[in-house]
C-alpha cells in the first residue's frame, strides 16, 4: 500500500497492496460515505506560543484507511499538531477537518469516532484497568460497556492484570491498557503519539502487529507520531517529515529513501535533521 498525501493535499496511489479489502467492513463503508476524500484535512495550520512558532502553516490530508506518520525530531511540532487535531489545543490560524467536520466548531460531533494514545497522559493509577476502561466506555457512549471491556481485554490479553491497580503494572502492561482505551470505541481515526516509546522490542513488536491486524480488519485510519523509523517503515504508507513546525518533505517510506539516496528511513531522517547545520558549515 503506497499512497502519498502530496503537497497539494491530494491522495494518490494503490490501496490494495496488502490484500486488505477495507470496504468489507461496515466502518469502512461509513467512512466512505461520511468523508469521501479525506479523514483528516489540515489547511494552513499554525500555532504560536508568544514569539515561538510551534507549527508553521502546515497542509496535509490523510485518506481513509491509511496509516500516516508524522516524523520529526524533538520540538518539530508533531505533538502540537496532534493536540490541535484532537481539539486539546486551539490553533492560531488555519483549519482542521476530521471525518468531514470542522474540528474548531464541531469537535463534539466526531470525538466519539476517534481516539488517541499518548505518553503525555495516563489513566488514574489507583483504578484497575477494568474500572478505567468501564468509565471510558461510558464516556464514549458504548452500548454494552461490560461486554466490550471483556472483548478488548481478551483481544489484547489483559486478563491477568485487569483487576490490579493500573499504577502497579509495568510500563508494557500500561501501554497495552492505553491501547485498549484507544481502541475501546472502535475508532475510525486513531491518533497515536509515540505509542511504543517505552516498550521493550518484544512488546513493541506485539503492539505493532496488533495495530496492523486492527487496521486491516476495520479499515481504520491511523496518524502516528513516532521517532521509531523501523516502526514507521513497517506500519505507514505515508510519511510527513516535520522540522521546526513545518512539513519539509513527504511521501511513502520507499519514495523518501529513494529521493535522498539512502538505505533506510533513519538515514533520511538524519539527513533532513542535520541539513541546516551542513548548510551553515558551507
Amino acid at each position, binding site marked *: 500500500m503506497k499512497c502519498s498525501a502530496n503537497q497539494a493535499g491530494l491522495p494518490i496511489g494503490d490501496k490494495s497492496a496488502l490484500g486488505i479489502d477495507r470496504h468489507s*467492513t*461496515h*466502518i469502512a463503508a*461509513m467512512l466512505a460515505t461520511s468523508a469521501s476524500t479525506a479523514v483528516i484535512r489540515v489547511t494552513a495550520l499554525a*500555532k504560536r*506560543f508568544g514569539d515561538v512558532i510551534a507549527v508553521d502553516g502546515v497542509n496535509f490530508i490523510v485518506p481513509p484507511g491509511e496509516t500516516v506518520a508524522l516524523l520529526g525530531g524533538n520540538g518539530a511540532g508533531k*505533538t*502540537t499538531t496532534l*493536540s490541535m487535531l*484532537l*481539539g*486539546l*489545543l*486551539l490553533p492560531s490560524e488555519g483549519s482542521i477537518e476530521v471525518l468531514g467536520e470542522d474540528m474548531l466548531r464541531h469537535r*463534539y*460531533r466526531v*470525538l*466519539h*469516532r*476517534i*481516539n*488517541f494514545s*499518548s505518553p*503525555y*497522559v*495516563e*489513566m*488514574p*493509577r*489507583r*483504578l*484497575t484497568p477494568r*474500572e478505567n476502561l*468501564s*468509565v*471510558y466506555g*461510558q*464516556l*464514549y*457512549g*458504548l*452500548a*454494552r460497556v461490560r461486554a466490550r471491556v471483556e*472483548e478488548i481485554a481478551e483481544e489484547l490479553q489483559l486478563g491477568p492484570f485487569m483487576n490490579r*491497580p493500573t499504577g502497579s503494572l509495568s510500563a508494557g502492561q500500561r501501554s497495552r491498557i492505553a491501547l485498549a*482505551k484507544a481502541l475501546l*470505541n*472502535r475508532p475510525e481515526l486513531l491518533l497515536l503519539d509515540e505509542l511504543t516509546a517505552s516498550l521493550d522490542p518484544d512488546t513493541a513488536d506485539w503492539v505493532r502487529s496488533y495495530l496492523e491486524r486492527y487496521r486491516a*480488519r*476495520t479499515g481504520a485510519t491511523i496518524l502516528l507520531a513516532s521517532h521509531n523509523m523501523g516502526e514507521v517503515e513497517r506500519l505507514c504508507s505515508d510519511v510527513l517529515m516535520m522540522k521546526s513546525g513545518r512539513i519539509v518533505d513527504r511521501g511513502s517510506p520507499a519514495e523518501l529513501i529513494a529521493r535522498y539516496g539512502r538505505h533506510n528511513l533513519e538515514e533520511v531522517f538524519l539527513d533532513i535533521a542535520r541539513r541546516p547545520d551542513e548548510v551553515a558549515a558551507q
Partner: protein
Amino acid sequence: MTASSIDREVRLRREPSAFSLRRMTAMVLRYLYLLRGSWPRIAELIYWPTVQMILWGLISQFFVTHSSYVAQAAGILIAGVLLWDVLFRSQLGVAVSFLEEVWARNLGQLFVTPLRPYELMLSLAAMSFIRTIVGIVPAALLCIPLYHYSIFTIGLPLVAFFINLMVFGWAMGLMVSGCILRYGLGAESLAWLAIFALAPISGVYYPISILPGWLQPIAWALPASHVFEGMRAVMFEHVFRTDLLMQALLLNAFYLVIGGVVFLAFFRAVRRRGLLLQMGE
C-alpha cells in the same frame, strides 16, 4: 469483532447529545472507584469533621457554664462548626476531585472523549455532595451521644442551610479548580486555603455585627454569612428568616454563575496555551 457488533456500534455513532447524564455519572463512578479503593481517603473524609466536632463540643460545654451567649442556645458552636464543615467539604469535594484528574494526568484523555466541560463540572458537584455527606453525617450523629445535641433539631431550615452552603462550596470549588487548570499544581494549595480566607467574615461563630463597619458589607456579600445569621435566628429566636434565605439564594446564583464562567474561561485559556497534555505532577 462480529458483523452484528459492528452494526450495533455503527448505529450508535450518531452525534452524541449536548448533555449526557450517562457521561456525568461515568465521572461520578470514576471518583467512587477511587474512594472505594482507598480507605485513607474515606477515613480522611470522616476524620476532620469528627475531630472538629469533638473539639468544639468540649469548648461549648465549657462556655455553656461560663458564657451567657452560648448558654442561650446549647449547641450553637457545634451547629456552627458542622455547617461550616458543610461549606468547607463542599468546596474541597469539587477541588480535590478535580485535582485527582490533574494528579493522574488524565485531563488530556478526558477531553478527547465526548465529555463536555459542564458535564465534568456537574459530576464534580455530585461528587462533592457525596463526599460531604460521607464526612458530615457521622460527625453529626456522633455528636448526639457525646454532647446530647442533635443538629437535626433545627428541622427543615437545616435543609435550606445545607443546600445554600453546598452551592456556595460548589461555586468556590469551581473557581479554585479553574485556577488550578490555568496555573497548574502551583495553585494546588488554593483547594485548602481559599475557603478559610472567608471564615472570619462568614460569621460562623459570632454575629456579623461585631465585625468592623467597613468589613460588614463584604461579609454580607457572602451567602455563608446569611446562612449563619439564619442559623442563629433559628437557635436563639426560634425564627426562620426567609429574607436571609432569599438573599443567600440570590447570592448563590450569582456566585455559581461566576464559578462556572471562571472554570470555562480558564478551560478555554488552557486550550489556547496547550496545557491540557502537560498538566500533572
